[in-house]
């Protein structure tokens, strides 16, 4: 925690920017993990909710002049509703079919964003450029550092909400539905409500993340929210660890920094690495990095005794 606070003062502005983006992805990954890891509903289209959050923030800031910190909860609210509404028909879809439907959503999203008739709002294929928020005078920080702390604060808040949710009744209900849906229903869990709510909450997290991402990157355009974004998010939760909260952070660091490193090898390398890691992790480390860390801690604890 202390390290996280000290970092922006030690690193260059660009690194701070990258770390901020990693934090943004961590929130999105927590949302997706809630849906897929804890609740067992596969979503290959979460990029669409990220895009929705980003565009809500961009439109509010650019067309209506809303201050940036207000757009984040607004984006969250819109995505909560959107996710819940998508979750309702998704109740009828199991595993593979839900993956198909969300894949379709992810692929179609850029086209929906480019649609002519809403171009006045969305800026069409060129997207919207947002002004970077200024750090307040009393803080003495640079813009990047200020944004880092804002995002860090949001991330802490979202993680706290997520942690509470997953530890409580709702979290147990989610896991019960994932593991034994029929038994859960028989025990009195309102499966339909829990599943839809989980979709909604997961979309809310991703929407908040999208809004923050838009503010950090200062730009939204349809083509940056393609199916590849949704696949990146899935890569993140698999690498980080399904059904784990810390996994969101490991996964976010992976999807933020590995492409940059891999890009230096070749343009195609990042995705090849993603693909190989996806398959390798499914065979070798299904619980992801978080599972590995847990295993190491347990082993160390035993060794010390």
């Amino acid at each position, binding site marked *: 925690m202390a390290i996280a606070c000290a970092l922006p003062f030690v690193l260059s502005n660009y690194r701070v920017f990258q770390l901020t983006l990693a934090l943004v992805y961590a929130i999105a990954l927590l949302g997706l993990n809630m849906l897929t890891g804890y609740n067992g509903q596969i979503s290959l289209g979460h990029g669409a909710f990220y895009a929705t959050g980003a565009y809500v923030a961009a439109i509010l800031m650019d067309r209506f002049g809303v201050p940036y910190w207000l757009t984040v909860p607004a984006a969250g609210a819109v995505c909560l509703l959107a996710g819940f509404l998508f979750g309702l028909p998704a109740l009828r879809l199991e595993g593979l079919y839900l993956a198909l439907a969300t894949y379709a959503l992810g692929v179609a999203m850029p086209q929906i964003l480019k649609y002519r008739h809403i171009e006045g709002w969305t800026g069409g294929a060129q997207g919207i450029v947002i002004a970077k928020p200024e750090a307040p005078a009393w803080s003495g920080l640079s813009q990047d550092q200020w944004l880092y702390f804002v995002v860090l604060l949001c991330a802490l808040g979202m993680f706290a909400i997520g942690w509470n949710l997953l530890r409580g009744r709702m979290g147990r209900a989610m896991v019960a539905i994932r593991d034994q849906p029929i038994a859960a229903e028989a025990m009195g869990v309102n499966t339909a409500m829990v599943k839809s709510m989980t979709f909604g909450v997961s979309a809310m997290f991703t929407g908040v993340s999208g809004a923050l991402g838009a503010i950090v990157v200062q730009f939204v355009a349809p083509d940056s929210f393609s199916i590849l974004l949704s696949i990146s998010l899935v890569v993140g939760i698999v690498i980080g660890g399904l059904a784990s909260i810390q996994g969101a952070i490991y996964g976010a660091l992976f999807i933020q920094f590995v492409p940059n490193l891999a890009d230096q090898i070749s343009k195609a390398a990042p995705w090849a690495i993603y693909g190989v890691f*996806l398959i390798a992790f499914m065979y070798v480390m*299904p619980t992801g990095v978080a599972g590995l860390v847990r295993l190491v801690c347990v082993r160390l604890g035993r060794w010390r005794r």
Partner: protein
Amino acid sequence: MNALLHQMFSGLASGGIYASVALALVMIYQATHLVNFAQGELAMFSTYISWSLMQAGLPYWGAFFITVAAAFVIGVLIERVIVQPVENAPILSVVIVFIGLLVILNSLAGWIFSYTIKPFPSPFPERPLFGNSYVSSHELGSIGITLIVLALVFVFFRFTPLGLAMRAAAQNPASSRLVGIRVGWMLALGWGLAAAIGAIAGIMVAPAVFLEPNMMAGILLYAFAGALLGGIDSPGGAVLGGFIVGVLENVVGAILGTDIRLTVALVLIIGVLVVRPSGLFGKVRVTRV
């Protein structure tokens, strides 16, 4: 009226491509109850193989048949090496492995062949057949080839012992093993056939959309819509679904604007899955609790 007819014929041509890919999807689904998300990328990769063969100097049809054979082998290999270990794993793992495959094939194509868009030759003459203005020779040709492939597949499954063995392995693996059928290799064969059909579809569509690593992403989506519409476990239904989706996509695109086409697929997929998940001709599956 003219324009509508033109759109319908274009729709039938693209529908043929969607029907082929949908058939490949259904073949894998029938055998394994899994939807192969990497089908499009397999087809794209095979098309690149045929492109490099032609660059090396081979004539079109020579490259065509070698590519189909190569795609078959690649399909079998992928099933044996990558898919077979996760056959019985939870559905999430399988989907993730497929997505990984999709991504690897896509980036491999980009790495080996670069991301620049390449033109792809068509074996059919430039001038439209009979001088008509509705459908080009290539479109007619690809519909023709699609139908020939479908007929061959139908004959194979219906009238040959190997086809019968494959059908048996898909319907009832346990009993098939008792009769002496090597179920694992039947699945691999199914994947090989599906990859080969996908390769043909890719080669047919490449002249129209130009060869680049991302060319099959949209087509895969339409193929999903077609396969779901016709019934994910009915080959004939999937083919019909593919043609319907092709025509629908073109006609709706003409009416509402071409930038909304993928959304048509999205709406169709969600609509079919919510209203009638088994599609038009699929079997309605009832499970006991």
